[in-house]
């Protein structure tokens, strides 16, 4: 089955040499001539303008339709406000903090027992005492509104893809791939142009961002159902609708709930990013603090994001696993629910007369802002030299060489190498994909930015791998350490990507090194996770065989465990690369000069064309890298010895 092409490797070298030689002879082969570029961004901008002009009634209609539930939820959760419906104006008070916190803790207790209740209570306490409650509720409101839309659209798309496998293969899967690799910022640009600066745009971008995993999970869950369930639906004489709603979807529910949890977390992640186009909330606070270099406030708001993320994640997981264990049918929660709702209503109404019930009293709030400020100042004063030394070392020995090599590489040579690599690893399709992606970056005039992006991702990946693989191996070797590591990785993964920037920027100021460290912190998690999983999956029979042969633990690692674990580790590195790409965009906020910066600038200028094109570049590079890694992993995966003749 393996179609290994040994000859192809011998073609690779001369071709690359030839390309480099040509590149040195002709300047057009080194730098892509400006005249060959196509005005893609301009064309996109123009057509977008046409679309916007002609569809303004539709977008306005859409915006109004979303606005109503949105104001309602925002009013209830955070600010209170007037809801106008037709001629009516309804003045809504915000739900009281006391009632809401009680409801959150009660839900934790009902579904996850005292442990979860305690966690939720601590989380609420943090938000309240550190004065983050109303911003957190605003963020939560955006999540609460976006999740149903993302879920609904995701499930419908997933069902369609499941019903029509051909459509799925040729349209839905590629589009979803692109949606997941194109950075979130890039969505913001067109929505901004279509819907203007404000919460509605933010909501739409959020929904688009959070939809793909749900669609994927839905398709997967439906196609993984045991044959007996689909047969059952047919044999009971179900109509198509009955089969789907009464049998298949309920049976797929445990997996769908996992998707739900993912959707909630992605929504939170995006809501934080979308704060920048006017959704307000915790993300906005962090951004503001970052801009003003108000370290204490930035850290507190950042911590609030983490707290909120953990609260949502734990609650979501418990709900999902509870359903699959069949607890969803317990019927004795009626009384508790009534009591809690009563308390919520009661405290809200009482809050109208008694202010401390409505808004958490300021005098109870604390802040560690000044302590934090002085801590950071102290660190900067006392460790400036050390930090600076590390920074310069990284820059001089790792980052600059790679940057210069990539920036000065002739495009023709790079293209040739990419195409050859694609061909060797995955056949002509992958080669064509490589050429297509490279060509797109070239003709849109984004080659340099693409190279900068790849330089950042590459250095981040190198650091992540040299950090993550040993950590993963250590975690496997010493299970207790492994447990700690898993915990840390899980925590890191629940955090919205934006949060990573805060401490780095505070210590290292803006620049490539800060960006890189933030990227590594974000992208090292999949490497650790995959490495540990890969080592865990090495069959015990093999290690026992190694022991019997008298391997030292080093020999065992080199000759038994690593070779078997390598394909999985490679997939982890692939994830690491994709994570880096996603993070690169966010680091544009701290002043890198890559594709992310292009998107960010387009965002501030509301320039649809450049924003989309740069975003697309990132997305395409992501897909290419993903396909290359997968092909490589498949190539080196050992063929299972066939057990039967």
């Amino acid at each position, binding site marked *: 089955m393996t179609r290994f092409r040994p000859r192809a490797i011998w073609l690779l070298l001369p071709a690359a040499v030839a390309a480099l030689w040509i590149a040195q002879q002709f300047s057009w082969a080194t730098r892509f001539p400006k005249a060959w570029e196509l005005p893609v961004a301009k064309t996109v901008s123009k057509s977008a303008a046409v679309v916007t002009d002609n569809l303004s009634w539709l977008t306005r209609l859409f915006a109004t339709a979303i606005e109503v539930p949105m104001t309602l939820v925002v009013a209830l959760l955070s600010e209170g406000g007037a809801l106008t419906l037709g001629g009516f104006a309804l003045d809504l008070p915000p739900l009281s903090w006391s009632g809401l916190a009680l409801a959150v803790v009660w839900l934790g207790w009902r579904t996850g027992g005292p442990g979860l209740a305690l966690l939720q209570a601590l989380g609420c306490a943090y938000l309240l005492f550190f004065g983050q409650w109303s911003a957190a509720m605003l963020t939560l409101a955006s999540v609460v509104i976006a999740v149903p839309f993302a879920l609904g659209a995701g499930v419908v798309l997933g069902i369609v893809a499941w019903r029509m496998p051909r459509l799925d293969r040729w349209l839905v899967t590629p589009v979803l791939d692109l949606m997941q690799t194109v950075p979130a910022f890039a969505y913001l640009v067109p929505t901004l142009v279509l819907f203007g600066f404000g919460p509605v745009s933010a909501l739409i971008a959020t929904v688009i961002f959070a939809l793909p995993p749900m669609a994927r999970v839905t398709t997967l869950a439906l196609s993984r159902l045991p044959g*007996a369930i689909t047969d*059952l639906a047919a044999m009971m*004489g179900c109509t198509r609708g009955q089969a789907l709603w009464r049998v298949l979807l309920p049976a797929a529910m445990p997996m769908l709930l996992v998707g739900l949890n993912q959707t909630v977390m992605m929504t939170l992640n995006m809501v934080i990013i979308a704060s920048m186009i006017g959704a307000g909330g915790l993300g906005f606070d962090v951004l503001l603090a970052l801009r003003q270099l108000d370290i204490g406030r930035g850290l507190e708001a950042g911590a609030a994001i983490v707290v909120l993320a953990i609260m949502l994640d734990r609650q979501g997981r418990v709900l999902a696993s509870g359903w699959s264990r069949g607890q969803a049918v317990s019927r004795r929660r009626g009384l508790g629910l009534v009591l809690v709702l009563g308390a919520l209503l009661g405290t809200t109404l009482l809050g109208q007369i008694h202010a401390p019930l409505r808004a958490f009293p300021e005098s109870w709030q604390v802040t560690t802002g000044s302590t934090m400020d002085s801590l950071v100042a102290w660190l900067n004063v006392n460790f400036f030299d050390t930090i600076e030394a590390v920074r310069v070392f990284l820059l001089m020995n790792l980052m600059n060489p790679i940057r210069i090599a990539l920036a000065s590489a002739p495009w023709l040579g790079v293209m040739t190498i990419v195409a050859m690599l694609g061909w060797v690893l995955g056949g002509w399709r992958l080669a064509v994909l490589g050429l297509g992606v490279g060509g797109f970056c070239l003709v849109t005039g984004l080659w340099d930015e693409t190279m900068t992006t790849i330089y950042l991702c590459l250095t981040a990946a190198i650091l992540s791998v040299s950090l993550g693989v040993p950590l993963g191996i250590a975690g496997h070797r010493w299970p207790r350490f492994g447990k700690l590591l898993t915990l840390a990785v899980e925590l890191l993964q629940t955090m919205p990507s934006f949060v990573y920037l805060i401490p780095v920027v505070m210590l290292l100021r803006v620049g490539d090194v800060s960006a890189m460290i933030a990227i590594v912190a974000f992208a090292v998690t999949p490497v650790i996770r995959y490495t540990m999983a890969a080592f865990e999956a090495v069959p015990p029979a093999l290690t026992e065989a190694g022991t019997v042969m008298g391997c030292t633990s080093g020999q065992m690692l080199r000759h038994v465990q690593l070779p078997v674990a390598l394909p999985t580790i490679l997939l982890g590195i692939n994830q690491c690369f994709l994570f880096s790409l996603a993070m690169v965009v966010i680091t544009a906020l701290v002043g890198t000069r890559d594709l992310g910066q292009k998107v960010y600038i387009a965002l501030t200028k509301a320039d649809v064309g450049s924003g989309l094109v740069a975003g697309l570049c990132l997305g395409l590079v992501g897909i290419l890298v993903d396909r290359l890694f997968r092909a490589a992993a498949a190539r080196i995966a050992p063929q299972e010895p066939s057990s039967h003749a």
Partner: protein
Amino acid sequence: MSKTTAPVQRRTKLSCSEIWKLYGPNADRPAASRDEVESRAANGRCFAALSDVSLDIGEGEIFVVMGLSGSGKSTLLRCLAQLVEPTFGNVELDGRSLTRMGQAELREVRRHDMGMVFQHFGLLPHLTVAGNVALPLKIRGEKAESRDHAVATALELTGLAAMADRLPAQLSGGQQQRVGLARALAVGPGLLFLDEPFSALDPLIRRELQDELIRLQAGLHKTMVFVTHDFSEAVRVGDRVAIMKDGRLRQVGTPEDIVRQPADDYVRNFVAGVDLTRVIRCATAARPASRSDYAHAVSGQGRLSDAAETLMAAGGGPIAVQGEDGSLIGEIDLHAVLAAVSGKSLAGEPA
């Protein structure tokens, strides 16, 4: 020809004629003629999971389909149930062609006249036992009252009344399959499909459920198509057995026919090692009565193994074999049993 137990004359409930099922490229396209399907099966690109299978299954009969893994048992069952469309051939239920029926009509037939039991139960995890059993009734739009009644009856029949509110995850495998059975029976179908219904259970529970099925069948007289790969199960529950190999029927007959006169070496190998005393009925082994009065009697429908104790009590001497109405069919003694089991010389058929 040998004397066999008189075949019960039954009205045909389900029949199929010349059905073929091909898998492979373009296999979804139905064949227009027999020649076409044969040439497509022969050209080597398609794989024939069923070749030219014709069957008549009588009303109230438990028809067992047997064969090794991959022989096409499930494919046959699924073609009969129209879960997969045969590439060629016709399936008729009560004289109406299922293969030519429209979707809506087929749905109605399934809602009222078919039930299915799955190897791995196929219960919905979020519904209680009662909810699972009620589901097909809800699907066909039954009113709440008659539905509750039907559910209660089905649960009563299968001995699950006490567990109505439990979730499938809280039941043992045997109990789960009872729920599967109750669900299939709830709509009051005339026809049941069972694809290896007891294969996932351990031997003791399997026997218990086989007995349960036999007990239920005595009162319900459903027509059943029952797939198994366990010959002793086939003998216990089946009225007739079909043996398949490579998508073709090798032999169809009563279990006794098959063990006593295997159609070919494949079937002979297949049934080799079967405990014949548990297959052959007393009536088959009986000789003409030599007197009119016996101290001991056994039922002609019983297996030889059932008669062992009575034979021992009679000192091995001849005992009466009676028909269902108590009439005298003949007699058996130790020698007759041995003769039947050795297959050398059977009563009325000199070696």
